[in-house]
């Protein structure tokens, strides 16, 4: 038989405190999350001691089904966009007031983000593996043998370093400029019921002798993402709104540039 305990002022206080903490926790989650629930998921870890990477606020996929002239693409590109900023990419951000939109665009520029672009929807299937190697703005390798597909590109936006009076140029630790991205698709559905693209990725940074600084960082970011599909027109309109004054240098690279042009 379990012991019973007569309620006392002390135990009531503890219970109330716990309940209050629960309320605080819920309020905190809603506040941090902005809208209260996040769209999509992404979680990454890094091999760097002092650099995290968190573009898990909003994660969504979209098909680039039509170009700027509304010409339909029979095998469209698939973009998976991830950003620290929390918003509803399936809603219409133009309903927000200007100050909120401006703040969101500002945060977009100073937080982590990553956009993956697959060249052909038809290749984005469960189990598919993709690889791309970039050195600066140039793709130097795409795919690897028969099992690892080409047709992947990406835009990485690492949050700018937060400067203070102690920040020095000598303290800049650049990332290696050879960047290898490997993506494995775990789930890809494009139908009417809960369409989503999910997978795992590893982005590796290597220094290039003679080009990178001697102390360039080498290491990797790895993790998984789950990106519900958002209608192209809505996704592109929202991304354009968030790009704000950054224009074509938009963090998410959305709307996508025409095929053949660099991200």
């Amino acid at each position, binding site marked *: 038989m379990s012991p019973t305990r007569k309620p006392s002022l002390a135990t009531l206080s503890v219970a109330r405190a716990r309940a209050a903490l629960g309320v605080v926790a819920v309020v905190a989650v809603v506040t941090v999350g902005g809208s209260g629930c996040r769209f999509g998921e992404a979680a990454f870890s890094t091999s760097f001691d002092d650099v995290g990477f968190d573009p898990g606020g909003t994660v969504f996929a979209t098909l680039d089904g039509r170009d700027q002239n509304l010409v339909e693409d029979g095998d469209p590109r698939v973009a998976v966009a991830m950003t620290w900023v929390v918003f509803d990419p399936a809603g219409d951000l133009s309903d927000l007031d200007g100050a909120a939109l401006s703040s969101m*665009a500002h945060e977009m520029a100073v937080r982590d983000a990553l956009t993956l672009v697959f060249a052909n929807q038809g290749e984005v299937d469960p189990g598919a593996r993709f690889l791309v190697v970039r050195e600066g703005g140039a793709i130097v390798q795409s795919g690897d043998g028969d099992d690892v597909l080409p047709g992947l590109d990406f835009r990485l936006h*690492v949050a700018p370093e937060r400067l203070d009076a102690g920040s020095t140029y000598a303290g800049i630790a650049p990332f290696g400029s050879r960047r290898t991205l490997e993506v494995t698709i775990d789930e890809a559905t494009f139908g009417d019921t809960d369409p989503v693209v999910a997978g795992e990725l590893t982005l590796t940074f290597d220094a290039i002798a003679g080009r990178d600084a001697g102390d360039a960082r080498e290491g990797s970011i790895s993790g998984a993402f789950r990106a519900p599909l958002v209608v192209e027109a809505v996704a592109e309109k929202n991304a354009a709104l968030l790009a704000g004054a950054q224009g074509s240098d938009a963090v998410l690279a959305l709307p996508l540039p025409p095929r053949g042009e660099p991200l």
Partner: protein
Amino acid sequence: MSRRAPHPAVLACLAALPWATSCAVAVDGSFAGLPFSPDGTAVAVLDENDVLVRGGAVVPVGLNRAQKRVSLWLSSERVDPGVDWRTLGGARLAELRTRLALSDLLVVQGLDYDALGDGDELTARDDAGRKSGDFAFALSHRALGDDALAGLGNGLGARVTVTARAERVDDGDPRGGSVRVALDVERERAAGQPAGDLVTGTVSLTVDVPFAPERLGEANLAVVAPIAACAAAAGPLGAGACADEPALPVVDGGGVH
């Protein structure tokens, strides 16, 4: 070069506010009664390093003495240059940008550190948009009310000449150093402007400030400089639209931002 010590009053200000002070700017004169008093905030940055971006690789490099440059910016607004403005929330940053755009603002960039150290007099001119000289500058006036506008006659003389002469330059390693610079800002009639009843004259500014931390100072200057350039071109009536001018790129280990 001269090695004048800072005035005791300036030293007192420096103690209160480490490297950006309102009391470090002395203003003398006006443009025919139109004040120009950018004495709310003064920041000097000694550019001793650069960051190259080569094929995607970010490579910090130190500058030799001949390559070092000094930048100054002065505003009638009191703002805090001691924080990285990019870390401010969007609303606070927008407010700060608006205040700067609507202030008396002077940004001077590219002063030759070596020449300043030798006591040379450096000059630059903006002649109705045609720029020349030893350095770059942008000057804009705070928003003017109807009363002020009524007293402007045929408007502002559009030929602006800035002359800079250092009275002290101390790179002061490892403590950051300081600079004392005399700036004469002269407004004159530009060719093509109507003769007479133009706002002309000379404002003399003396700036005595420690150098700001280089990276932080340059990151915030990347916000101020485009606003000043836009406001200088737009004039006092259009300067408010310059608050949203995109910042210049800033490079760090993650790339160009």
